[in-house]
């Protein structure tokens, strides 16, 4: 099958840290991670481990009936932490619905992320606080939003000189997956971004599976190759190598900030878990396929590197585990304590300005509901 073509043994793939935890030098991208010291590496490790622990907790909450659905990200931690940590707070992120790790890097508090999956909110958090947009459930619909947002940035930064662009310039990261890569919105967002040279980085996590459909059904070529058709660079990176992902995303963002236009990054990774908690991967993929990727686990390769190079001791790893437990307990407690919404609140946010139909229906709804309360009171009085 053509599948081997997309595996991370590929020569076109940017890799700085091998699955065995060896640091490879790279003429072009080493300079983008020069500042990464032991503390930062431990930070990435901690981010990835906490994200995985959060993912486990959320999956458990779903299994216990506390969430309607959960979207696991296991296996994609490096792609998300590496790219998220490459952004500046002033950059704006448009996620799919699986970017829990990116959310961590944008300081979105984990429990907030469960509001969507607990049926409390369709947004979850305030995107303006962290420049991390709400999850978009319609595949790829967020992609042209990212391009449009970047077009807005261009207009806000009109007339800035190169130095100011480098220091204060903003850019957008648009996340999508191998599955949604086939949607027309991806195509149009890339055409528009290329036409207007918009400062947007298209970040594809190719996790090999669109629910049950393997990547080779979505594309006969590596997705990064498609960028050539739009006239901007496409780059393939080992998505399980946090250092390489950080490097290429920094490179792409710097380029975008300088006004050199969009980049498509294809982070080759693997969805180690199910598409969602409603999915059953045993129906469509072999356990051998899953096992092959265990050896490329994004967290264990950084762990090996940290241990082999004496950059982290046992106490550090024990602390991360302890912090994970503490976080998971807090996530569970806070999620269970979320107040339930009311339907009246749903009426409030349909329109910004007064709307006669909304007012009429809300009035009817409140009177109708009040009727039940009155009946209950009467019955109690009897």
């Amino acid at each position, binding site marked *: 099958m053509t599948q081997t073509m997309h595996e991370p043994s590929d020569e076109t793939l940017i890799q700085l840290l091998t699955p065995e935890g060896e640091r490879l030098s790279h003429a072009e991208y080493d300079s983008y991670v020069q500042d990464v010291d032991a503390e930062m590496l431990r930070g990435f490790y901690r981010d990835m481990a906490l994200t995985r622990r959060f993912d486990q907790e959320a999956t458990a909450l779903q299994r216990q009936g506390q969430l309607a659905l959960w979207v696991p990200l296991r296996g994609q931690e490096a792609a998300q932490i590496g790219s998220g940590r490459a952004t500046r707070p002033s950059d704006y992120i448009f996620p799919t619905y699986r970017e829990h790790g990116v959310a961590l890097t944008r300081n979105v508090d984990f429990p907030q992320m469960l509001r969507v999956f607990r049926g409390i909110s369709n947004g979850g958090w305030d*995107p303006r606080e962290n420049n991390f947009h709400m999850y978009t459930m*319609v595949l790829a619909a967020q*992609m042209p939003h990212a391009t449009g947002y970047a077009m807005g940035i261009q207009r806000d930064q009109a007339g800035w000189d190169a130095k100011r662009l480098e220091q204060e310039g903003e850019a957008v990261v648009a996340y999508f997956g191998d599955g949604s890569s086939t949607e027309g*919105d991806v195509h149009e967002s890339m055409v528009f971004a290329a036409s207007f040279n918009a400062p947007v980085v298209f970040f594809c996590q190719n996790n090999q599976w669109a629910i049950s459909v393997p990547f080779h059904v979505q594309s006969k070529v590596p997705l990064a190759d498609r960028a050539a058709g739009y006239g901007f660079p496409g780059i393939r990176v080992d998505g399980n190598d946090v250092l390489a992902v950080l490097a290429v995303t920094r490179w792409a963002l710097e380029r975008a900030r300088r006004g050199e236009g969009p980049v498509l990054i294809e982070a080759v990774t693997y969805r180690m878990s199910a598409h969602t908690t409603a999915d059953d991967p045993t129906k469509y993929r072999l356990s051998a396929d899953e096992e092959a990727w265990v050896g490329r686990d994004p967290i264990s390769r950084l762990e090996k590197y940290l241990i082999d190079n004496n950059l982290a001791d046992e106490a550090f790893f024990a602390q991360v585990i302890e912090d994970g437990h503490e976080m998971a307990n807090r996530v569970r407690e806070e999620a269970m304590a979320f107040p339930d919404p009311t339907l009246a609140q749903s009426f409030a946010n349909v329109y*910004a*300005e007064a709307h006669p139909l909304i007012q009429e229906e809300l009035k009817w709804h409140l009177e109708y509901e009040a009727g039940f309360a009155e009946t209950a009171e009467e019955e109690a009085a009897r």
Partner: protein
Amino acid sequence: MSTTMTLAKAITAGLDQVLANNPKSLLIGEDIGRLGGVYRVTDGLIDTYGADRVIDSPLGEAGIIGSCIGMAIRGYSPIAEIQFDGFVFPAFNQITTQLAKMRARSEGRFGAPVVIRIPYGGGIGSIEHHSESPEALFAHTAGLRIMTPSNAHDAYWMIQQAAECQDPVIFFEPKRRYWLKGEVDTVNPAPDAFKAQVIRPGDDATIVTYGPLVPVALAAAEAALEDGRSIEVIDLRSVSPIDFDTITESVEKTGRLIVTHEAPTFGGLGGEIAARITERAFLSLEAPVIRVGGFHMPYPVAKVEEQYLPDIDKVLEALDRSFAY
């Protein structure tokens, strides 16, 4: 100050005001810059405001509306042009699942106040997809507002009201009335776009309509005078929300209601109006509400469109039925 303008030029003048008054406003669409749009509604605006604010976009309706949503989130006030009614559907997903829902999704924190201008309606002898009236498809989606002016004065002011509105607005422009001339008072604004207007008072029956059929309804009312019938005509101006108070008040007086629109009758806004008015003014009605709309078929070929479109005779026939009831 009053100036005679075509409906199209009144929109141009209104857009000019929007661009002049709001530095965050911008226009985007296919061929709207150098060409000035296929109907020249944006003609000349690129010369005044430049290509960064009057943007010739690549072909792609989903890309246009999707980009507008992103720009709106960034704080801009985009006004998109969709070239023709039948070409809005590639953007249907962006409009209904994203634009309409952004405020609800963000729990009221922010919305996407985008205006989408769409020339709509038939009667221009054109080819497929250039004559449709898809307003009901959008009216069914909460979160959107839909306006449609019928005259130059309203067009001048309503496009400005749409641009100022903090909710997304679909602005349907009656393309066969683009060349209809009228007086535009550029000092005294038109009434709130969401308020229907009684444009001809009458006592015996009410005709409710909007956009391209307003002149048809007025002509039918004039013709009905010959039969001694005094007909009230209401121009809705906004088809989402609909000003049911104005219609109710009229029907309570006249007792008869005809609703006419070019869009197919089945599942159209006429049905919604009939149901609501039946609920609100049942005891005032002397006859069932009668709808005069398009047939349940794809918009027909130009050679037969005159038979498809509601016209004066069809409205008069509906009035006859109402009075005979």
